[in-house]
């Protein structure tokens, strides 16, 4: 049985580790690229959002490589994405691929549901092996996310632009290749030190921009024009609360115990929106309210045609917590030019705002 899953950021690394430990063949989809996009667009209903199209592209590419069992997140409480697995299964069958689609409804199936799926896929490996494989996967995921948080900070202040990105690319493959807890620990320690030692500008603290919006486009750089790296190039520190490791930690373990990280965010959004509107719209507003003191500005990422995020986009300018927001719609366009113009102007705006209004008005703007 050859298993695969669509890309979303670095998610493939922990899953590959998990399945390798259980001797199940896991196919890593080719990194999301132009071909993925073209395939996804060709076989998708036109009005659907970019997460559907890109994940479908990934699924077609792995089906071509011989994957037989495909995993796809699904379930209620999200948005249309809950139905994507079914629709994509249909598309793949119509294309003649004999695949089995397994829906991962993480929020419904909880931890044990997920373990049962893994048990089935691993041809009945022992519970001990499954738990230990799962733990190893989680360790990799946590390490990846810790590294990413570090890189977000270094990118903004490094003297030679691109250094942190190169180290980040290196550490991703090193974590991917690590085959034991021990190696993993060494890799993480080694790269933490190397990232700490990257030469930095001795200037004041950098501008801080929070990134909020729809889960998939936040986490899949291909879909958001690599917005985090671009902000880093402009000397901006990016903060994001959405990480896969956090999300799994809460939706699998803590939420069932009644510890809900999102309560705080939802409470903050209450004066402006009283209920969940699907997707991550409620969270986008809540994060703006919650972090308005800490962030200089907010970049809001939304897939084109995403109803929850469009609602959030229209509510955000009305909040009393008044930090500038730049909404970027993510769709099939792959030219960065338009986005860069907006990002550059946005950063100019934030810089001038921070410097304060005392300037010679006759001569300069922004």
């Amino acid at each position: 049985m050859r298993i695969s899953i669509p890309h979303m950021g670095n998610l493939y690394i922990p899953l590959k580790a998990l399945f390798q430990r259980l001797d199940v063949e896991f196919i890593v989809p080719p990194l999301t690229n132009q071909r993925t996009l073209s395939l996804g667009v060709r076989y998708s209903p036109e009005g659907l959002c970019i997460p559907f199209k890109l994940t479908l592209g990934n699924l077609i590419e792995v089906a071509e490589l011989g994957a037989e069992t495909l995993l796809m997140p699904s379930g209620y409480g999200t948005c249309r994405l809950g139905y994507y697995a079914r629709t994509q299964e249909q598309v793949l069958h119509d294309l003649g691929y004999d695949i089995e689609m397994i829906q991962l409804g993480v929020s419904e199936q909880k931890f044990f549901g997920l373990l049962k799926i893994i048990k089935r896929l691993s041809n009945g490996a022992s519970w001990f092996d499954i738990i230990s494989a799962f733990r190893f996967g989680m360790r990799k995921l946590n390490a990846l996310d810790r590294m990413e948080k570090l890189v977000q900070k270094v990118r903004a202040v490094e003297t030679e632009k691109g250094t942190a990105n190169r180290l980040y690319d290196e550490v991703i493959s090193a974590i991917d290749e690590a085959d034991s807890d021990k190696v993993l620990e060494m890799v993480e320690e080694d790269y933490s030190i190397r990232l700490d030692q990257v030469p930095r500008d001795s200037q004041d603290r950098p501008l801080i921009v929070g990134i909020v919006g729809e889960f998939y486009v936040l986490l899949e750089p291909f879909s958001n024009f690599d917005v985090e790296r671009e902000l880093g190039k402009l000397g901006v520190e990016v903060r994001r609360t959405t990480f896969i490791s956090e999300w799994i930690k809460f939706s699998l373990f803590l939420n069932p115990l009644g510890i809900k990280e999102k309560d705080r965010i939802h409470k903050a959004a209450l004066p402006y929106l009283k209920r969940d509107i699907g997707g991550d719209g409620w969270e986008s507003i809540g994060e703006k309210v919650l972090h308005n003191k800490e962030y200089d500005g907010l970049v809001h990422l939304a897939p084109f045609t995403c109803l929850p995020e469009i609602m959030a986009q229209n509510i955000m300018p009305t909040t009393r917590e008044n930090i500038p927001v730049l909404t970027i719609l993510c769709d099939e366009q792959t030219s960065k030019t338009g986005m860069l113009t907006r990002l550059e102007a946005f950063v100019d705006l934030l810089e001038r705002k921070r410097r304060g209004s005392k300037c010679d008005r006759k001569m300069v703007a922004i």
Partner: protein
Amino acid sequence: MEAYLGIDVGSVTTKLAALDENDELMAHVYQPTRGQPIEMVQRGLEQIKEQLPADVDICGVATTGSARYLAGVIVNADLVKNEITSHATAALSYFPEVQTVLEIGGQDSKIIIIRDGIVTDFGMNTVCAAGTGSFLDHQALRLNMTIEEFSQRAMDSQSAVRIAGRCTVFAESDMVHKQQVGHKIEDILYGLCQALVRNYINNIALGKEIKSPIAFQGGVAFNQAIVKAFKEELGAEVIVPRHHELMGAIGVALLVHEEMVNNKKSKFTGFQVSEAKYRTSSFECKSCTNLCEIAQISTNGQTLARWGGRCDMWERMPAEETR
């Protein structure tokens, strides 16, 4: 004689503006881009050189507009700046009190909100070009008139017809249907102007507070009927600067003048650029499975710049033989 040169390469037109040391406009060029940004920068440089005194010393050169990086490589710009900042700078230098800048160009429309001389917010059209210059050009062409005639005839309208302005496809079919049932062309044209203004206010300016003084910049401000429609819709005076179509180029020239303090030396390649031959090409990078589209520009077998990759591998690679 000192001069600062601003070059604004937009999707539809290319603008050059030369300012003297007191920031007065000395010379300017305004011409269509026709999808050939490099050639138009070269030709623009040629033309502006003729207008400038022979002893001119270019002390700073800067580029803006959607082809700002490409143009920046050709002239070896001292500063490359986005068009929003450039437009705001120019507006503030002419009208220090300005609070709102409306800017409509060939493919883009923007709104810039300024308070106390600082940009506090901006908006830009996203996936749709409804209400920009290109669409007006297209409609003028379809009705077999020049864009100047379009403007004049729309001004003659006595009672405008309502046209759907939400999307260019709807607008066009609405226009055709109204023509077919016998509405006067003047009224349809002005109806279209109103629709575009409505679309602008409901889309780009959504949720933004439009306060006077309001400046209207960009090529579309040539169109008197659009100006009139804006005044009616906003119920306020709308100032159209004399050189509204050049404001991006002027703004970036002002910014580079400010940048070149303390006798910093300009990197400007010189006017001879207009004779050089440039070659652009693109290829798919096969170094990893990202398969990025890399664009490159070269002259005399020397690669000047490459971009488009998700990593900076090609940008960092030293100039070498063209691939």
